[in-house]
Structure formats: structure tokens, C-alpha cells
């Protein structure tokens, strides 16, 4: 009986861990997916935006002593960088997908080296606010779980709902959705597409920066994390479908769960689970679970 209870607990813990990781992946990948869906722009520097936002948020949080300000700084700094990249570089090559992708690879290489230069190879750990520190006992199960991880899960849900409302209930959101479906038609109906692009890019990049601080607090910030989250974003949008927030949420949850179940039940082959999910989805639905063509 005790053994059974123990394995049930392990199972639930794995589910929770998977969902938390999925929540983090969702925060990063939703921006990636949104930018791709609207602009056909595969921004392979998205992982770099995650890490850079995290570092900047860390510096701000250290100097002001406020974690919340750090989160805001992570979002704001990357939103601004996103607009700058969009206006200065990507706008000049609209419609040339491949060139945009190559350029974003160049940017990610430069940013990675720049961050190594400024912040070095150490890993950084945020000081989490007291309110989120410690463990919470989940009622009924008697399961103890870190409060901060639950906060990550909650914030992803809140941001996900916020994003959904923004896209489905506001005028700008309507424009973005229209742009995803038919960019030419949106332009023809007299809407400043460049402005919509800039806003989307700012939002997508800002979300990456925000995720950098939130994810950096859950785990840590170190060189190489940029690639990890870039890969996560890639797999999440391949699985979930491009340009769909719901798809990103489903994809992120699936990948997070696959990752954690792999880690718990067969540690050496954890990556294979993630990979298998991707291959199966591609075989059944090449455009992703929520993707349309």
C-alpha cells in the first residue's frame, strides 16, 4: 500500500513538474509562435532574447532589490530590442523568409558572444520574493511542492488567458489575427501593417525577456540556456502549430510532460521522448496540432 502511494506521489510530482516546465516553455514559445504566425519570420535569436532579458532583469533586480522590477525590465528591454530589430533589420527583407532566418542566426551568434563577454560564464540565481519562497502543501495529497514553481504555472495560465483575450477581444488583436490569416488583405483594408508587425514583435520579444526572468528564477541563468529555450520553442511550435496561442499551450504542456516523464522514468533517454512526440505529430499532422494551412 505504501509502495503504491509512493509511486502515485512520484507520478503526480512528475505531472506537476512537467506542467511547470511546460508553463515556462509556453511563455517562451508563445512569442516565437506569434511572430512566426504573423510575419513568417523564424526568429532563431528568440532564445538569445530569453537569456538577455533574464540577465538584464537580474541586474535590475540586484540594483533595485525588487524582483518585480526585474520582471518588468526583462519584458521592457526585450520589447524595445524586438522593435529595433524589426524596424532596422527584418523590415528591410520582408517576405524573404530564408534570409530573415539566416540573419536571425547571425544575430543569435553575436548576442551569445556579447552576453558571454558581459556576464561571463557563471550562472546567476535570482533572489525570489519571500512570498513565493518555500513549499506549499497541496491539500488531499499531502504533497509538498515549491511555491515558486506553482507561481510559474499560475503566471503562464494568467499570461495565456491575457494573450488570448488580447488576441480575441481587442482591435489590435483582431488585426494580428487577420494578419496571420491573410497579410495582403489586411494591408489592402487600410491598416498600417508595419505598426501591427512592430507591436507583435515587441510583444513576442518582450514575452521572451519576461520568461527569461521567470525561468531564470526557477532554474538559473547561464550560457547555453539560450539554445535550450530556442530548441524548446522550436519543438513546441512544431508540435503545437505555428501562430496559434492555444497550439503553443498544448505543445508546451506535451513537451514539458514528455521531458519530465523521460527524466523520472528513464533518465538517459529523456530527450528521445520529446523527439518522439515531435516525430509522431509530424507524421500525423505535418502542420502541428492546432496548425492550419
Amino acid at each position, binding site marked *: 500500500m505504501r509502495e503504491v502511494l509512493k509511486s502515485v506521489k512520484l507520478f503526480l510530482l512528475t505531472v506537476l513538474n512537467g506542467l511547470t516546465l511546460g508553463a515556462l516553455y509556453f511563455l517562451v514559445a508563445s512569442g516565437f509562435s506569434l511572430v512566426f504566425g504573423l510575419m513568417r519570420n523564424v526568429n532563431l535569436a528568440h532564445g538569445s532574447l530569453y537569456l538577455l532579458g533574464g540577465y538584464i532583469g537580474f541586474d535590475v533586480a540586484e540594483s533595485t532589490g525588487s524582483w518585480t522590477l526585474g520582471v518588468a525590465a526583462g519584458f521592457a528591454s526585450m520589447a524595445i530590442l524586438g522593435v529595433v530589430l524589426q524596424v532596422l533589420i527584418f523590415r528591410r527583407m520582408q517576405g524573404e523568409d530564408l534570409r530573415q532566418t539566416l540573419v536571425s542566426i547571425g544575430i543569435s*551568434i553575436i548576442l551569445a558572444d556579447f552576453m*558571454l563577454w558581459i556576464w561571463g560564464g557563471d550562472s546567476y540565481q535570482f533572489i525570489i520574493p519571500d512570498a513565493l519562497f518555500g513549499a506549499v502543501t497541496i491539500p488531499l495529497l499531502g504533497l509538498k511542492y515549491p511555491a515558486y514553481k506553482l507561481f510559474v504555472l499560475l503566471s503562464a495560465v494568467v499570461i495565456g488567458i491575457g494573450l488570448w483575450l488580447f488576441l480575441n477581444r481587442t482591435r489590435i488583436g483582431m488585426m494580428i489575427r487577420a494578419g496571420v490569416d491573410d497579410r495582403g488583405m489586411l494591408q489592402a483594408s487600410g491598416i498600417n501593417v508595419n505598426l501591427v508587425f512592430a507591436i507583435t514583435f515587441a510583444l513576442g520579444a518582450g514575452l521572451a525577456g519576461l520568461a527569461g526572468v521567470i525561468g531564470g528564477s526557477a532554474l538559473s541563468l547561464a550560457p547555453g540556456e539560450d539554445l535550450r529555450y530556442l530548441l524548446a520553442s*522550436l519543438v513546441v511550435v*512544431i508540435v503545437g502549430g505555428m501562430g496559434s496561442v492555444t497550439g503553443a499551450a498544448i505543445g508546451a504542456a506535451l513537451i514539458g510532460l514528455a521531458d519530465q516523464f523521460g527524466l523520472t522514468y528513464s533518465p538517459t533517454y529523456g530527450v528521445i521522448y520529446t523527439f518522439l512526440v515531435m516525430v509522431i505529430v509530424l507524421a500525423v499532422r505535418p502542420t502541428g496540432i492546432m496548425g492550419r494551412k
Partner: protein
Amino acid sequence: MPLSQFESGAAGKGAIRLEFAPWQLVLLLLLIVYPFGANDFFIVQIGAQSLLLGTVALSLMLLAGYGGIVSLSQMTVAGIAGYMVAILGVDSYNLGLGWPWWVVVPGAILIATLAATLIGMISVRTEGIYTIMITLAIGVAFYYFCNQNYAIFNGFTGFAGLKPPPLFGIDWRSPMPFYYLSMVVAVVAYAVVSYFERTTFGLSLQAIRDNPRRMEALGYNVTVHRVAAHAFAGLIAAIGGVMLVWYNGRISPGTINVGNLINILIIAVIGGIRKPIGAYLGAIVFVLIGNFAIDLIDRERFNMLIGFCFLIIVLFSPDGLLGLWEKFKSMSRREPKDEW
């Protein structure tokens, strides 16, 4: 441009025609005499390394330039060939199966080519930028797998002490023989790819690149052509991979990390992705920057330098250095016309 033509075999139907441009013969001659005017560092570190990286980049050029398929997993295929050399053959930790080289080398190339075919079958369902994403995801997943798998791939440590077999009593590890071995591999690969451009398969692949829907309507099986292109490019990458593992003497997950996957793309793009020679041109530039960045700027900032070079080339000349050369040629050709 005048072409000197050589015909081998029976003239007429089915004859294999090899065509050389004069500059190609000059280049071949230069490659042959190069080691006599260079020290060991320039023969191996610059010469052989450029030729081998160029060969792996050539496999990407073949896919991207002729097939319109940008695959980031070409270094992964090369890495699989390298790993197989270690796993099937002899290494310094005695972890491998220790089979003789004449089984190991074809075996490694075969397995890597099969892996490339498999990657092709997975990624063929996607197009354009999706292909980049999925091949990158495959490459990174394999990197993490090798890193964690100790049973077969010996995890983080990988394998060491891998060297070419002592054939004909020659130590193929010493600079001159290794350079010539690399040169022969590179020249043959280059010649095969150049020839491929004009074969039926090569032409239909290029037609598929330009208009897959029309080719499908004409009755061509687009999927099979694309998978076959992956397999053929995989074969070239695999041969390059076997040579690279002998060059390095070791293989570990670091060989196939994201940085190295992307380096192959950088090499092909810097040189110019539309012509086979671009891959080698890019490799020379890349290797030179890699070795002499220390003299130009701080040793640590190599990535930033190569990143900027890449960015500038992508921003200003989508066809790479070859594109710049073509532009320059057409510009200088137009101007002196009045004087003639």
C-alpha cells in the same frame, strides 16, 4: 568562357562527358603544389581542415542550392559517420568493436547515409523554414542524446585515438599524406557534385526547387526526389565526417553541438550557396578567420567576428562571396566597354 572538353568512353549516346573550365585546372594545380610552399600548420590546420569542412558544407550546398532544402543537420550526419568509425573500429579506450578498417569505413558511411535518409524522410513533410527548424531540432536532439548515452556513444567524453589505417606503409596522419587524402576526397566530391548538376536527377531536383507543384503535375515524385537528395548529400557529409574524425583524432558531443551545426551553414552561406566552389571558398575564409581572429581582435571574440561577417554577407550579398565576385565582374565588364 571557353571550355576545354574531355570525352571519356565511347562517343555518342551514353558517353560521360567531363568538362573543365581553365580556372578549375589552375585551382587543381594550385592544390597539388600548395603543400610544397607551406609549413605543417598551413598544410593541415588550414589546408586539410578547409577541404574537409568544405566537403561537409558541399553536402549542404547540394541540398540547398539544387534542392532548395536548407538542412542544419549535415554536421549531425558527418558526426554519425565519425561516431561509427569509433564504435565499429579501434579507439584508445578500447570501447569499439575493433573491426578492420575495410569494414569500418564503408559501414560508417553506410549507416550515416541511412541516417541522412531517415532525416530526409522525417523532414520531407515540411518545407522552407520549417525544414530548417526540424533539422535543427533533430540535430540538437541527437547532440543531447550522445551527451547522455554512455552505453553506445560514451556520453560527454566520446572517443579518442581514432586514426586512419596504415595503408601501403604510409602514416596517413602525417601532414603531407593527410593533406593529399583530404584533397582527393574534396576534389572528387566537388567533381561529382558539379557533374550531378547536369544529370537527369540533378535537373529534376532543380526543377522541383523552382516549382514543386508543376513537377508534381508533370508526374514527378517530389517526395522521393527530396529524400534521395538527402541521401546523396548524406553520403558526401558522411565521407567528410570520416575524414574529419581522422583529422581531429577524436569525437565527442562537442563535435556535433549547435555551434558546429550552424558553422556548416555559415560556411556555405559565406562562400555562396548556389555553386559547389562556394562551399570550399567559405570554408577557407571560415578557417582563416578562426585561426587568425586572435591577431585581429581578442581571442575570445571569434564568434562575434564570424557572426558579424556572416550577418554582413547575408544582409548585403545573399549569394555570398561568389555573389560579390559576380557583381564585381559584371560591373568591371560594363565599364571598360567604351575603351574597347
